[in-house]
């Protein structure tokens, strides 16, 4: 074929890569300079996650399982950060665990970024604790079902969990008020549902954040076994926007302050709590490019078919 169609037919895929790079980099630069984000309309699944944390009585102990690694941190770290932030704002206690070897470091980063930076009044061992990574996948889940401290005998820094005030009322995983799980693959949300939530007879509420490719696998469990679901960076952005809207509402300032948090309600949210919303800009650029590429690919295909028919005729 000649002309533009000919160029498209023989297009080196590196041009596609370059187009994708520009489609992603452009919004990053624009949003970085203007400091604006796109508006988000939360879906029911994201609202359910927000409500699940919000509706817990203050001081509830929440189990946060960060089952991801740096490879998927781009999609999942904002979810983990938002979950930790909302728990701290609501005055809940947080117990962090991970079933992925590199998950312990992801927890450390979140604690440093959120709790130590913005909630310095919270004490390690009393208000939050990092129990780190535990090997064993489903075996760990089976053990925590009946004896949580046996599965995690020490914290990541080596302190005995038997002596920790935060775990004083926790015998088994069902004693937690909520399981908030951030999942990149195996072991992840599906295994938590199969081995823990189902085995607890629905007594342990669970909310989950997962990567985009995993979301279709987890929709069958929503809203039954999984009360709320954050799917991909979109879900993270919706959840983030819900928390930011709640923080910015002056009507909630007194409630937040009563937990001891000093978030300084103002019109400006720190950039670290806008990461997911910022990443929706590149997502928009990438998705629009994909639509254009699919259309162009089909134009080429139809032109090829027509020329083949002409040649056959």
């Amino acid at each position, binding site marked *: 074929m000649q002309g533009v169609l000919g160029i498209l037919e023989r297009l080196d895929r590196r041009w596609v890569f370059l187009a994708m790079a520009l489609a992603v980099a452009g919004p990053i630069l624009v949003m970085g300079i203007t400091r604006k984000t796109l508006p988000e309309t939360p879906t029911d699944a994201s609202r359910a996650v927000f409500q699940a944390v919000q509706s817990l009585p203050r001081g509830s102990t929440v189990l946060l399982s960060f089952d991801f690694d740096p490879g998927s941190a781009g999609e999942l770290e904002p979810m983990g950060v938002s979950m930790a932030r909302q728990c701290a704002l609501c005055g809940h206690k947080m117990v962090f665990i991970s079933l992925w070897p590199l998950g312990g470091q992801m927890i450390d980063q979140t604690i440093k970024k959120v709790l130590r930076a913005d909630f310095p009044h919270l004490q390690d061992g009393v208000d939050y604790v990092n129990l780190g990574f535990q090997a064993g996948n489903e075996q760990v889940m089976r053990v925590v079902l*009946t*004896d949580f401290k046996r599965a995690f005998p020490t914290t990541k820094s080596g302190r005995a969990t038997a002596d920790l005030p935060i775990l004083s009322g926790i015998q088994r995983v069902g004693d937690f008020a909520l399981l908030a799980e951030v999942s990149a693959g195996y072991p992840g949300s599906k295994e938590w549902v199969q081995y823990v939530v189902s085995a607890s007879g629905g007594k342990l509420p669970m909310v989950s954040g997962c*990567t985009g*490719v*995993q979301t279709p*696998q987890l929709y069958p469990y929503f809203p039954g076994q999984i009360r709320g679901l954050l799917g991909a960076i979109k879900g993270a952005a919706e959840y983030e926007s819900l928390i930011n809207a709640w923080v910015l509402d002056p009507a909630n300032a007194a409630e937040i302050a009563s937990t001891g948090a000093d978030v300084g309600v103002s019109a400006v949210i720190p950039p670290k709590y806008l990461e997911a919303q910022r990443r929706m800009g590149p997502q928009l650029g990438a998705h629009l490019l994909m639509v254009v590429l699919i259309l162009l690919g089909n134009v080429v295909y139809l032109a090829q078919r027509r020329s083949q028919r002409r040649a056959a005729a």
Partner: protein
Amino acid sequence: MVRGRSITSDAARRVLLLLAVCAAAGFHDTPASAHLQEIAAAVSAEDAAAAGATTAGLFTPGKLPLAVAIIVTSGCIIAWMLQARAGAAMYLRRIPALDAVTNAVGRSTEMGRPVLFIAGIQDMDNIQTVAGITVLSHVAKTTAEYDATIEVPTSRSLVMEAAREAVRGSYQAAGRFDAYNADAIRYITDEQFGFVASVSGQMVREKPAACFYMGCFFAESLILAETGNSIGAIQIAGTAESSQLPFFVAACDYTLIGEEFMAASAYLSGAPDQIGSLKGQDAAKVIVATLILLGVVLATIAALNVPQSEAVSRVLESVKGALGS
């Protein structure tokens, strides 16, 4: 030059087996085993208490529905296996992806380029990896017969050992043990993206003519498939990870979807009892589909405002309760 299993590898394998046996025996005596047994005993005691069992050590009543499901499914599979052994004719539809294996290996031989086989990135405790290794043994037999070379990079050490055994056996069965090269089956790394980076680089440098992706894959599936596409290889994939199937379907020439991948070994062997097991699996699927339809009809009646709705609702709730416990 005869290339076979090295003496060092043989000795290491025997040491490994001995250590495993010692570990199994030693678990009865070490403090670690006592700790583990305590944990497991606590788990079983709690399970029994939670399920309302009156006597510890007997069957857990709460798991009865699951046990019935397993017995029915296994019964179907075994019954059809026995029928097939007795000589009953069994029709099996063609699976194009598996019919293409021979063509793919033949293409590699003609082009003088290797065959690349990846058995997933999980360990031997994952059934998909085991299924991948069974397919590997069939593919390796074909490569031995066609005098092609096969490369099997693995992401787990145990998978490397199992793959070596499978390929070695296949070459032996094909009478081409002299062509077996243990170093062609090698361990790369457990790290997901480190593995795919290494394999992608290998694909771009060595340009295999045929790529087989058979096992459990995650995010690296598209990277592998696109790289294979860029070098012009014929690609045949199979996985039971439903999240990765779209990527393989889009980028590979043939894809085995879920249970097709599980059936691959039976299909390739052609043995009657293995084919019979596939028929038994289909029978179990018919039972499941019937139960789903029944559930849908009952749930619809329960949702409608008709006189029987309440009674049907009660039946449904009691079934849900029995299955959920």
